[in-house]
């Protein structure tokens, strides 16, 4: 399998914030999940000028935690990413197909593809193979046509555009929190705080979510990645 997870954006546009003393390597070469990961928390929200994506980092194989620092947010194009939940194998496979098709499409188009297009490619494959897949996806990103966008693609292969979304086993614990606290037109900092807090809350309640809180802020100009370590989560429970 092609290791698309190792791909990193090049140039100045990609800013990484890893706190000092972080126990994980800055160049994080850890392999993506190699086993089933049904337990997950994914939170994504739109704000003024972009989107924030957030995920926990626990990958479990039944009772055993196979990876405590995994990446569940994968890149499919310069400004388009996907949050993966369900079977790690299935979602990785889908992602690498879309990565391939979208890359070809972008070359043919001669410009950046839209988030809409990426979400549609995910939908086609999720829907057509629904009997064999266990994949809940949230596709999000930025394009010049419609700005920041989020598309939720749950189990059956529906595709819905939403202002904010949560998925994975942990999402059930925080949907009320999100409905109560999400506001359209938040600033970048507000939105990041909101999304990170939601993820941290889910981690605190859901046994199958845990580890750190990884986040990605996608705007017109750049993609910023950040991580909050497991012992510094913004909840006190």
């Amino acid at each position, binding site marked *: 399998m092609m290791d698309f997870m190792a791909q990193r954006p090049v140039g100045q546009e990609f800013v990484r914030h890893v706190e000092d003393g972080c126990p994980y390597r800055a160049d994080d070469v850890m392999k993506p999940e190699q086993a089933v990961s049904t337990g997950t928390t994914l939170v994504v929200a739109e704000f003024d000028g972009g989107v924030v994506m957030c995920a926990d980092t626990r990958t479990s194989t039944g009772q055993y935690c196979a990876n405590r620092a995994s990446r569940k947010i994968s890149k499919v194009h310069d400004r388009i990413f996907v949050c993966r939940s369900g079977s790690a194998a299935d979602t990785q496979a889908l992602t690498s197909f879309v990565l391939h098709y979208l890359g070809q*499409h972008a070359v*043919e*188009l001669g410009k950046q*593809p*839209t988030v*809409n*297009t990426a*979400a*549609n*490619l995910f939908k*086609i494959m999720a829907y057509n193979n629904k009997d064999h897949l266990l994949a809940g996806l949230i596709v999000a990103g930025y394009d010049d*046509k419609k700005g920041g966008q989020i598309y939720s693609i749950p189990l059956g292969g529906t595709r819905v555009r939403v202002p904010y979304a949560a998925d994975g086993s942990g999402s059930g614990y925080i949907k009320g929190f999100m409905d109560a606290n999400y506001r359209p037109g938040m600033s970048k900092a507000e939105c990041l705080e909101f999304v990170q807090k939601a993820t941290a809350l889910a981690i605190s309640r859901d046994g199958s979510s845990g580890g750190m809180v990884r986040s990605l802020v996608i705007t017109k100009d750049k993609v910023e990645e950040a991580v909050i370590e497991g012992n510094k989560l913004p909840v006190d429970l």
Partner: protein
Amino acid sequence: MAGTGAGYDLSVTTFSPDGRVFQVEYAGKAVENSGTTLAICCKDGVVFAAEKFLLSKMLVHGTAKRIFPVHRRAGMSIAGMVADARQIVSRARSEATQFMNAYCEEIPPELLAERLGLFMHAYTLYWSVRPFGCTALLGCVDEETKKPSLFCIEPNGMVYKYTATAEGKGKQAAKTEIEKVLANNPELTCEQALMLVAKIIHKVHDEKDKDFELEISWICPASNYEHAQVPVEQRKAAEAEAERILEAEQEDD
């Protein structure tokens, strides 16, 4: 036969000694024999016009069309063999829907034109098929930006992007007229162009030819940026005005 250069015009798979493929050139001749068709990229959209010869007095008006819709915001006007062109129209429609199904966005006009170019070109490569005897004028208006664009796709597979062009019998005269019109008014709108294209088609019509029916369609604000036939009343008014002006011009001469 050898050395005379003759006998090289029967197959598209054989070059002549001076590097030509005659069958493809003959396909071009089929286009030159057809009634004139033209299309103009205006400020606010695209206008198509075609001179359709009436083969019979009993032919029902508004049938046997030469301008076709491709998708909601794209149309195609034909010069040459209309039967051949229907394959191109059909291909254009399926390319447009396939693209929409896969990528959930309207196909960019450049891409659609280029794919039709490839399709036409494929028919100049194999002995078992003959080239298309038609040239297509493809006009689109972008869904978001409302920017009009126009392409000409030839039997040899070449694709050209134009602000305005004409094909068929009267193409030279028509192109000269369009150039004059655009030189006088580069900000031409589709509504304004209506009478002018009617005038051009009437002017380049050869009296020796059969009677003709004027076909006009457009993609502009008046049609809600969708490809549509110009309403009959509006077409007739434009045509009457065009004929009146043409008569006045002839009297002046």
